[in-house]
C-alpha cells in the first residue's frame, strides 16, 4: 500500500523525480514545512542566498550553463515579491526556472494576512505560467507540469505558489509516471518539409546572405549548435550573433563577423543592412538589434526560424516563417541539402565577402590604448588572452562593461556566456556566477562587472563565502554608471545627472571582509600579473580594475537610427540632432 505523504514531502519527492540536485532559496514562515523536509533528506542540496532576487539569478546561471531547469524556493509575501525581477529576467531571456513560493494558508488568502501577497497575480505577466495550488490533490501535477512547461517550447519561468496548509495536508503520491495530465502542453516542434525546401531555395539563390543567430540556438541544445556549424561550413555564409546568441557557434571562426546591434560591429551591422537574404535563427528582432525598424535591412528577403510563433512578424515582417525546434529545422535542412546533392558555390558570394572584408578592415573595435591608464577594452583583451585556454564561464552585470565583454571576449562553446539581455538587470552577474559555479565547481567562472552594478547584489559575497565558491569578480571600475553617462554625454548635453558613483567601498577590503582575496590594479603594465594571480588563487577574488573613467563604448547606433548610421568612435559626431522619435527610445 502507498503511504500518505505530506504536501511538503511531496514537493521534495517531486523535485527528486525531476532530477533536481540543487535549489536556491531563502526560508520563511510560509515554507517552513518544506524546509523541514529538506532537512530530513540528502538528495537535494540547498544553497542559501542572501536575497531572493539573487536566488532566481543564481538559478538562471545554473540553468543557462547546464541546460537544466533552475529551481528556486522562497517564502510568501516579501520572499515571493523579491523574485519578480529575477522571474522577469528569466522570462525575457527564455531561461527555464521553476520557482516554488510559500503562501498563507488557503482560508487566509484574501485577508491581507501577515506576509500575504497575491504572487500569482503579480507574476502572471512575468512567468510563462503559474499555479496557486488550492487542493493537495493538485500538488504533484502542478509541480511536474511546471517543469514540463518551463523546459519545453520556448523556455521560461514557472511559479508554483503553495499555501502552508497544503504543505501539511496528506495524500498519496505515486511518482511522476503516475501523475496524470502534467504533460498536456505540446508546442509545435517539427517543421513542414515544404518550408525547408523553400528555405534551401533561398539559400541557393542568395548573393549577399547573412546568418543572424540568437539565443534560441543555445536553448535548443548542443545539437542545434552542431548543425548550425555544419550549415555555416557548407554554405560559407557570414554569421553574426546577438548578445544572447554569443557562443552558439565559435566566435573565433572566420565566418563570424561580430555581434550585431546597438554596440555591434561595423561589418555585422552593415552586412545586415545591405544583405539580400537574412536568415534569423532563434532571435526575435529586438529593438537593440533592429535600430529604426523602417530602415532595417530594407532590401533583404527575411527567413525566420523559431519555436515561438509569437516572435514571427512582431516588429519586422519576414518572407518565410519556419516554426519548430531549431535542431530539428537545421537537421532537416542539412538532410535535404545532402539528399538533393546541393552544393553552394563560393563564387556566388565572393563579391559579398570582398565587401564584408572591406568593412572589417575598418577595425571598428579599435581604441586608443594608453600607457598610463587602463582602458577597459585593454583589460578585457588581456583577460581573454590569459584565460581563453581555460574555457571560462563568463557572466556580466549590465552596462558598458557588458558590451565591452561581448565585443572583446571569445566564446567558443555555447552555455559559457550568461548575461541579462532582454531585461538588462544590473546585479545579475554575481548571483548568476554563483549558480554557474555550483553547477561547474572545477571551472573558472568570472563575473565581468561594473562598480555600480556589482553593488546591487553585493550581499551575495556572503553566500560565496559560505559555500566557498571560487568566483572571480572582475570589476571595471570607472566611478560612473558608464552607460548612463555615455547617453547623457551624447543626448543630454553632458549633464551628468546622478551618474557619478560617489562613496564607493574599498573593494579590496570588502573582499577581505568576506574572506575573499581583493586585488587592485591601476597601471596597464600590471594588468597581466593581476589576471595571472587571480586565476591562481583557489578561492573567490574581487579584482578592482581601475579604468579610464571617460571611456565610452563604440561602435554605437544611436537610438532611432539605422544600421548604416553608426558612431565609430568619440570623434564621430551625431549627424544633426537625434530625432524626437529617437529621444524617447530607451
Amino acid at each position, binding site marked *: 500500500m502507498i503511504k500518505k505523504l505530506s504536501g511538503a514531502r511531496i514537493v521534495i519527492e517531486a523535485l527528486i523525480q525531476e532530477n533536481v540536485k540543487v535549489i536556491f532559496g531563502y526560508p520563511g514562515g510560509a515554507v517552513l514545512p518544506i524546509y523541514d523536509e529538506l532537512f530530513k533528506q540528502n538528495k537535494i542540496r540547498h544553497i542559501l542566498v542572501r536575497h531572493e532576487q539573487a536566488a532566481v539569478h543564481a538559478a538562471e546561471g545554473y540553468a543557462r550553463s547546464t541546460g537544466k531547469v533552475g529551481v528556486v524556493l522562497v517564502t510568501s509575501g516579501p520572499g515571493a515579491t523579491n523574485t519578480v525581477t529575477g522571474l522577469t529576467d528569466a522570462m525575457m531571456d527564455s531561461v527555464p526556472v521553476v520557482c516554488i513560493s510559500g503562501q498563507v494558508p488557503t482560508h487566509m488568502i484574501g485577508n491581507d494576512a501577515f506576509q500575504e501577497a497575491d504572487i500569482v497575480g503579480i507574476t502572471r505577466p512575468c512567468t510563462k505560467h503559474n499555479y496557486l495550488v488550492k487542493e493537495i490533490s493538485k500538488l504533484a501535477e502542478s509541480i511536474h507540469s511546471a517543469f514540463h*512547461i518551463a523546459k519545453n517550447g520556448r523556455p521560461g519561468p514557472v511559479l508554483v505558489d503553495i499555501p502552508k496548509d497544503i504543505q501539511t495536508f496528506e495524500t498519496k503520491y505515486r511518482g511522476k509516471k503516475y501523475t496524470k495530465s502534467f504533460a498536456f502542453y505540446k508546442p509545435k516542434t517539427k517543421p513542414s518539409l515544404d518550408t525547408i525546401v523553400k528555405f534551401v531555395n533561398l539559400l541557393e539563390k542568395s548573393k549577399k546572405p547573412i546568418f543572424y543567430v540568437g539565443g534560441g540556438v543555445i536553448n535548443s541544445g548542443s545539437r542545434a549548435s552542431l548543425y548550425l556549424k555544419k550549415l555555416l561550413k557548407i554554405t560559407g555564409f557570414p554569421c553574426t550573433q546577438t548578445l544572447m546568441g554569443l557562443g552558439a557557434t565559435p566566435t573565433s571562426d572566420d565566418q563570424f563577423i561580430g555581434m550585431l546591434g546597438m554596440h555591434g560591429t561595423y561589418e555585422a551591422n552593415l552586412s545586415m543592412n545591405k544583405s539580400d537574404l537574412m536568415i534569423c535563427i532563434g532571435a526575435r528582432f529586438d529593438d537593440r538589434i533592429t535600430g529604426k525598424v523602417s530602415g532595417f535591412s530594407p532590401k533583404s528577403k527575411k527567413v525566420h526560424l523559431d519555436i515561438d*510563433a509569437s516572435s514571427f512578424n*512582431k516588429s519586422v515582417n519576414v518572407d518565410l516563417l519556419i516554426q519548430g525546434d531549431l535542431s530539428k529545422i537545421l537537421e532537416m535542412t542539412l538532410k535535404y541539402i545532402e539528399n538533393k546533392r546541393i552544393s553552394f558555390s563560393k563564387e556566388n558570394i565572393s563579391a559579398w565577402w570582398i565587401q564584408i572584408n572591406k568593412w572589417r578592415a575598418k577595425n571598428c573595435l579599435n581604441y586608443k590604448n594608453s600607457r598610463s591608464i587602463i582602458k577597459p577594452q585593454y583589460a578585457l583583451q588581456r583577460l581573454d588572452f590569459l584565460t581563453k585556454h581555460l574555457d571560462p564561464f563568463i557572466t556580466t552585470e549590465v552596462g558598458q562593461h557588458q558590451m565591452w565583454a561581448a565585443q572583446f571576449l571569445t566564446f567558443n562553446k555555447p552555455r559559457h556566456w550568461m548575461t541579462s539581455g532582454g531585461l538588462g538587470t544590473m546585479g545579475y552577474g554575481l548571483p548568476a556566477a554563483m549558480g554557474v559555479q555550483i553547477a561547474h565547481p572545477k571551472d573558472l567562472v568570472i563575473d565581468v562587472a561594473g562598480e555600480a552594478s556589482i553593488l546591487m547584489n553585493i550581499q551575495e559575497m556572503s553566500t560565496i563565502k559560505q559555500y566557498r565558491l571560487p568566483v572571480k569578480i572582475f570589476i571595471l571600475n570607472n566611478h560612473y554608471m558608464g552607460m548612463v553617462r555615455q547617453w547623457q554625454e551624447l543626448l543630454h548635453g553632458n549633464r551628468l545627472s546622478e551618474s557619478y558613483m560617489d562613496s564607493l567601498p574599498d573593494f579590496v577590503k570588502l573582499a577581505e571582509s568576506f574572506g575573499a582575496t581583493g586585488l587592485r590594479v591601476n597601471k596597464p603594465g600590471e594588468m597581466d600579473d593581476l589576471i595571472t594571480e587571480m586565476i591562481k588563487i583557489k578561492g573567490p577574488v574581487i579584482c578592482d580594475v581601475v579604468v579610464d573613467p571617460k571611456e565610452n563604448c563604440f561602435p554605437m547606433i544611436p537610438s532611432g537610427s539605422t544600421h548604416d548610421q553608426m558612431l565609430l568612435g568619440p570623434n564621430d559626431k551625431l549627424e544633426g540632432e537625434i530625432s524626437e522619435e529617437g529621444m524617447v527610445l530607451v
Partner: protein
Amino acid sequence: MTDSHSKHILSIMVDNEPGVLARIVGLFSGRGYNIESLSVSEVDSDRFLSRVTVVTSGTKNIIDQIKAQVRKLIPVHNLIDITELKSFIGKELILMKLDIKQKTVLNIYKHIKNIGAKILFEDKTVIIIEFSGTPTEISSLIKKMKVYNIVELTRSGLVSMALGKDYIRR
C-alpha cells in the same frame, strides 16, 4: 506593414480555472491591445471548458500578434478568428428598464411588439424588456427607446458563431 485597422471577433476555448480570464485580459492590457467587447461562460461542464469571445481591432500585424500571444497561454486550447471565416453571426443581449408612470407611454407596448422585444417584467411603474440582436440592432434599439424614459440598461458582450460547417474545436 499594412496600417488599416479592422475589427476581429476571436473565439477562444480555455480551461475554466481560476485566473484564466485575468491571463487573457492582462495580456491585452499589458501589451496595449484593445478589448471592445468580452463575454465568457462555461460551455462544457464535463471537461471544464469555457468559451471566451473577444472583439478587438488592429492592423493585420497586431491581430496576428494578439492571436499568437493568446495561443501561447497555457490554459488556451484553441482560438479561431471568426471574422476570417466565410460567414458568421454575432449577437448581443440587452435588458432595459423603462419608466411607464407617465401617460405618454401608452403606445410603448405597440412599439415593443414591433421591435420584437420581450417583456420580462412589468408593474405599475416600470417594465423590463429583453432583446437580442446584432450590435447595430441593439444600438438602434437604444436610440429608438430614448423617446421613453430609460431607467437603466445593461447589454452583454458579443457571442458569435460561424455559419455552416466551421466550428471551434475543443
